[in-house]
C-alpha cells in the first residue's frame, strides 16, 4: 500500500518524460490515456484501502526515518480528492482528444497536461510544507504553459496577469515556508502543529496570515480573486475546464489543511467573513457579465465562498459540509465548462449576444447544461442542493445567521445568472446561419459529448449516493480534526 501513494504522482511524470522523447501525437495520446487511467485505478485502490481500514497511509521517500524523508500522506480527504482529480482529468483528456483543437496538436500539450496532473496529485498528497510548494510550482508552471500555448495576443495579455499574480503567490508561499522554518526548524506536517503551538501569539498569527494570503490567491477568495475571471476564459476549453474544476480547489484544500492541521480553529472569524464576501462578490460579478465563460468563471469564485464559509464555521459538521461541497463542485464546474466548450466550438463564440436557440437544435446539450447548472444553483434533489443544505445547516447550528442569509440570497442570484445563460443561449430563435431541425451539434462532436455525459452522470451519481458520501465526508472531517492521530501516523511512532 505504501508504494501506491507515490504512483499517482510518478505515473504521469514518467509518461510526460517519455512523451517529450517521442513527439508522435498518436503515441502521446495513447500514453496520456494509459497513464491517467492507470493513475485513476491506483487512486481507487488507495481510496478503498484508506476507507476500509481507516488508517492514514504514509510513504517516506528516500528511506529516511520520521520527519527527514519526503513524506506523502494519504488520509481520507487526500485519497478521495486524488480519485476525483484523476477521474476529471481523464474525462477532460477524452474531451480534448475529440475537440481537434490546435493546441492539442502541439507536441507539448500532452506532456504539460501530464505534469499538471502530477502536480495536482502531489499537492493533495504532500506531507510537508516545502513539498506542497514544489507541487504548486509544478501545477502552476504547467498551467502557465497550457494557458499561453497558442501564443495569441489575447492569451498572452491575460496570461501575463495570471502568471504575474501566481508568481507573487508562489513568492508569498515560499517566504511563509522560510519563516516557518526559521521559527520552528521544521517543515513537516507531523511536527509543525506542536511546534507552531509553542510560538508566541504574534509570530503565529503572522505566519498564519502569510499562508492564508498565499493559498487565498490560489483559491481566488475575496479580495484576491480578480485574476481569475480575466485569465480562465482565454484558455482553450479543455484547459479552462481543468483549471476551473481543480486548480482553485487545490487552494481550498490547502486552506482546509491550514485551518484544521497547522492552526486549528484560529482566525476562523476572518476566514468566515472572507467566505461570505467571496460568495456575494462572485455572484454579483457573474450577473453583470455577458459572456458565458466569464459568467461561469465568476461563479467559481462565488462557490469557493461557500466552501470557505463552511471552513470558517469550523467543527466536524461544517468541515464535513465543506468536504462534500468540494467533492460535488469539481465535476459540476468542469462539466459546465465542457458544455460551454461544445457551444463555443459550434458557434465560434461564447458571447450570449451571438448564441441563440441551442435547445431547439440539440435538446441533449440543453439537458447536459441544465443538470449541472441547476446543481450549481442548489436545486433539489441535485448534489448542489445537498452541499448547500449541509453548509447552511452547519451555519444555523452555530448561529451564523448573517452568513446563512447571504448564502441563501447568493444561491438565488446563482439561479438568476444560470437562467441568463439558459435564456440567452438555449432559448430564442435559431440563428439564420445555422441549419434548423438538425440535431447536429453533438453528432459532429461525439467524443466531446461522451466526455461531458460521463461527467454529468458523475454529478448525478453524487446526488444519488449523497447519503454514503456525506457519511464519508463526515468521517474525513473527524479524521482531519483529530490532529494527534495524524501526527503520530506521519511520524511513524
Amino acid at each position, binding site marked *: 500500500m505504501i508504494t501506491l501513494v507515490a504512483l499517482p504522482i510518478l505515473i504521469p511524470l514518467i509518461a510526460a518524460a517519455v512523451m517529450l522523447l517521442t513527439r508522435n501525437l498518436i503515441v502521446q495520446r495513447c500514453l496520456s490515456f494509459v497513464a491517467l487511467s492507470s493513475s485513476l485505478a491506483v487512486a481507487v485502490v488507495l481510496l478503498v484501502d484508506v476507507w476500509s481500514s481507516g488508517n492514514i497511509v504514509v510513504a517516506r521517500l528516500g528511506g529516511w526515518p520520521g520527519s527527514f524523508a519526503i513524506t506523502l500522506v494519504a488520509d481520507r480527504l487526500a485519497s478521495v480528492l486524488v480519485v476525483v482529480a484523476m477521474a476529471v482529468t481523464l474525462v477532460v483528456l477524452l474531451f480534448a482528444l475529440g475537440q481537434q483543437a490546435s493546441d492539442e496538436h502541439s507536441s507539448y500539450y500532452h506532456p504539460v497536461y501530464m505534469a499538471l496532473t502530477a502536480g495536482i496529485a502531489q499537492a493533495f498528497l504532500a506531507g510537508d510544507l*516545502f513539498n506542497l510548494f514544489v507541487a504548486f510550482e509544478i501545477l502552476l508552471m504547467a498551467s502557465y504553459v497550457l494557458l499561453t500555448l497558442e501564443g495569441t495576443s489575447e492569451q498572452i495579455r491575460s496570461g501575463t496577469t495570471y502568471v504575474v499574480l501566481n508568481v507573487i503567490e508562489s513568492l508569498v508561499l515560499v517566504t511563509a515556508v522560510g*519563516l516557518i*522554518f526559521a521559527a520552528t526548524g521544521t517543515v513537516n506536517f507531523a511536527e509543525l502543529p506542536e511546534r507552531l503551538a509553542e510560538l508566541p501569539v504574534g509570530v503565529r498569527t503572522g505566519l498564519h496570515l502569510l499562508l492564508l494570503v498565499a493559498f487565498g490567491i490560489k483559491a481566488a477568495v475575496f479580495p484576491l480573486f480578480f485574476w481569475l475571471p480575466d485569465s480562465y476564459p482565454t484558455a482553450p476549453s479543455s484547459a479552462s475546464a481543468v483549471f476551473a474544476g481543480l486548480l482553485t480547489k487545490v487552494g481550498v484544500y490547502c486552506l482546509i489543511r491550514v485551518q484544521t492541521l497547522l492552526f486549528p480553529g484560529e482566525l476562523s472569524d476572518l476566514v468566515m467573513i472572507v467566505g461570505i464576501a467571496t460568495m456575494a462578490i462572485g455572484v454579483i460579478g457573474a450577473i453583470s457579465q455577458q459572456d458565458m465563460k466569464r459568467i461561469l468563471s465568476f461563479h467559481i469564485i462565488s462557490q469557493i465562498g461557500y466552501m470557505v464559509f463552511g471552513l470558517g464555521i469550523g467543527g466536524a459538521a461544517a468541515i464535513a459540509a465543506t468536504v462534500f461541497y468540494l467533492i460535488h463542485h469539481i465535476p459540476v464546474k468542469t462539466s459546465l465548462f465542457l458544455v460551454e466548450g461544445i457551444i463555443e466550438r459550434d458557434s465560434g463564440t461564447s458571447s450570449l449576444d451571438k448564441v441563440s436557440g441551442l435547445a431547439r437544435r440539440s435538446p441533449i446539450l440543453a439537458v447536459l447544461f441544465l443538470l449541472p447548472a441547476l446543481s450549481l444553483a442548489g436545486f433539489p434533489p441535485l448534489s448542489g442542493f445537498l452541499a448547500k443544505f449541509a453548509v447552511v445547516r452547519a451555519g444555523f447550528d452555530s448561529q451564523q445567521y448573517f452568513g446563512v442569509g447571504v448564502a441563501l440570497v447568493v444561491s438565488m442570484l446563482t439561479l438568476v445568472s444560470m437562467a441568463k445563460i439558459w435564456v440567452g443561449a438555449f432559448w430564442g430563435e435559431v440563428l439564420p446561419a445555422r441549419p434548423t431541425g438538425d440535431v447536429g451539434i453533438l453528432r459532429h462532436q461525439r467524443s466531446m459529448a461522451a466526455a461531458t455525459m460521463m461527467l454529468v452522470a458523475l454529478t448525478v451519481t453524487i446526488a444519488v449516493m449523497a447519503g454514503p458520501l456525506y457519511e464519508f465526508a463526515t468521517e474525513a472531517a473527524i479524521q482531519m480534526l483529530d490532529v494527534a492521530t495524524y501526527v503520530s501516523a506521519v511520524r511513524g511512532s
Partner: protein
Amino acid sequence: MSVWSLVLVCVLFGVGAYLLMDRSLTRIALGVGALGNGVNVLIISAGSDVNEAPIIGRDGTLTDPLPQALVLTAIVIGFALLTFLMTLAWRNWTISGNDEVEDDVEDRLVARRAERTAKSGDQPHHEDVTP
C-alpha cells in the same frame, strides 16, 4: 540569522517589491528575480550558522543541511519561472511592440456599459458594446 543577511534580505525584498509595482513585464521579471533571491537568502540564514558546511562526517560544527536542500530546489524553480516570464515578455513585445501588463478588456467593457446606462437612464443595449 546574522544582521548582514537580514539586511540583505530586506534590501532584496524592497527592490523586488518596488519593481513589481511597475507595468513593464521586464521590470516585473527582474523584481521576481530579486524577491526570489531574497527568499533564498532568508531560508539559508534561517538554518543556522551560515559559515559552516553541511557535510556529515566532518569534524567541528555543522550547519543544518535541510535549508540548503530546500534552497537548491527553490533556485531551480525560480530559474524556470524567470525564463518563462522573459519568454512571455518577448512574445508580448513581438505581438504588441511593448511589454506592458494590460487591463482586463472585458472588465472595462462592463464598466463602460454601466456608465452608459447611468447616463441614458434606460435599459442597457448589449449589442452596442460588443467588441
